[in-house]
């Protein structure tokens, strides 16, 4: 065992010395390789961070939302439906939910207007930090709105939601039910949709099926589905970028293969000498393995650590626009620094293994130079 270890260390010494002798070539390889890993790692860390955030936040979302459909389009739901749903076995509470959009033509922004379970008093509103930033208002200020009846509605800002909540609340405008109905001329007796709680969480799907049976014009949306949508969205985005990254990777692999396959006369001579003085094919393969591994491991570590800094400390300036999307009301949030072993494994598989495989056959070709070649030329 110690013999094996010593042999590996001895050969690693030679491998590192050999890399150092061809500094220019190997440094360029290392830089390109690290950049490739960096790109892939940034995409992965960023989309996983968003995904995680969405999953955790939405775990607090309503278990079940019931919407009414009219000719396939979302329609307002009569509050009377709530009574019917409440009688279904397993259903806990049913509450009407009022929400909609208010388009601010001056700023070109779209607010999400919603009545929370504990609404502010009539005439007052709670706004998200994005709106506050856009309209430059502070708590206590008055904000004018134009109602659907063309009447001015002045609402006082009671509170601005904390900055840490931007990811969910940047465009949020919370207000009392009376103000909501006045703003949109919202008819009484209807709601945007209904939220339903279910006594046994295992039964949500069953309850949803019963609701559709009882009210064929409704569409229940499970919390699980909301979370799945976000997981899909970020996987899809991250995946698209990863596919682009795949092209980069392929280019890099070809580059690496070319570097590995194109042995210079000097390298060929060196391997010939080593074989001549008693190195075995297996020893040369080990040498080549260590040359490749020292490059790929270094590039992997450099790339991931740089990506960590880029994504979590600098908030991914290079990727944010594509991964987050954009809007007038743009949430300004920080991702929680978090990576896991799974991401690292995937990254390793995506970057190190193709490189190793690409250099395998060229290494073997180099290793099988005839030992007596050193005497023949």
């Amino acid at each position, binding site marked *: 065992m110690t013999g094996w270890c010593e042999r590996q260390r001895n050969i690693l010494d030679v491998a590192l010395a050999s890399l150092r002798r061809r500094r220019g070539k190997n440094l360029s390889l290392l830089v390109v390789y690290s950049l490739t890993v960096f790109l892939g790692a940034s995409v992965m860390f960023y989309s996983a961070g968003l995904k995680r955030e969405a999953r955790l936040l939405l775990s607090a979302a309503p278990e079940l939302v019931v919407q009414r459909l009219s000719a396939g389009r979302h329609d307002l739901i009569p509050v009377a439906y709530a009574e019917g749903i409440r009688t279904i076995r397993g259903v806990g509470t049913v509450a009407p939910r009022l929400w909609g959009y208010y388009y601010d033509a001056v700023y070109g922004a779209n607010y999400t207007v919603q009545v929370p379970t504990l609404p502010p008093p009539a005439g007052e509103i709670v706004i998200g930090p994005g709106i506050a930033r856009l309209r430059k208002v502070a708590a206590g200020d008055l904000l004018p709105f134009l109602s659907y009846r063309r009447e001015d509605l002045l609402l006082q800002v009671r509170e601005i939601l904390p900055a840490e909540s931007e990811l969910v609340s940047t465009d949020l405008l919370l207000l009392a039910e009376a103000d909501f109905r006045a703003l949109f001329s919202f008819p009484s007796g209807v709601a945007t949709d209904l939220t339903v709680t279910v006594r046994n969480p295992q039964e949500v799907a069953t309850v949803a099926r019963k609701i559709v049976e009882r009210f064929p014009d409704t569409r229940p949306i499970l919390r699980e589905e909301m979370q799945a949508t976000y997981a899909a969205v970020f996987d*899809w985005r991250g995946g698209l970028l990863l596919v682009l990254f795949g092209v980069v990777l392929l280019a890099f692999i070809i580059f690496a293969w070319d570097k590995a396959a194109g042995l210079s006369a000097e390298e060929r001579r060196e391997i010939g000498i080593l074989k001549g003085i008693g190195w075995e094919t297996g020893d040369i393969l080990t040498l080549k393995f260590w040359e490749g591994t020292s490059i790929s491991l270094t590039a992997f570590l450099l790339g991931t650590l740089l990506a960590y800094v880029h994504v979590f400390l600098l908030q991914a300036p290079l990727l944010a626009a594509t991964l987050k999307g954009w809007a007038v009301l743009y949430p300004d949030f920080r991702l929680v620094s978090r990576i896991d072993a799974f991401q690292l494994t995937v990254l390793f598989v995506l970057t190190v293994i193709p490189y190793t495989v690409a250099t395998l056959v060229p290494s073997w070709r180099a290793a099988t130079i005839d030992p007596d070649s050193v005497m023949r030329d």
Partner: protein
Amino acid sequence: MPLRRADIFGVLTASGLLLLLALVLRGSGPDPAEADRLTRLQRLVTEAQLTDLALLTEARYTRHPTQADHFAPFQDHPLALDHFPSGMFWSPRRPAP
């Protein structure tokens, strides 16, 4: 005798790996501040009955992707460039069963 190359490399690589491991562990351990933040945000989500993130607020059919109508364009085809750039990034989602 100076430190040999193999050992320098070994130490550097090992410290890099340890750093990564530390970052992984740091992410997996409990973080009270993070837990507090999460509790506050989850309370807000529950109280306001929110169902979506405020990532794409530019149009009503992208603000609440989980609540959108079935016919909303981005749900039909990922290449429908109805609303660039969001539209091209939403994947088609089938209607809930």
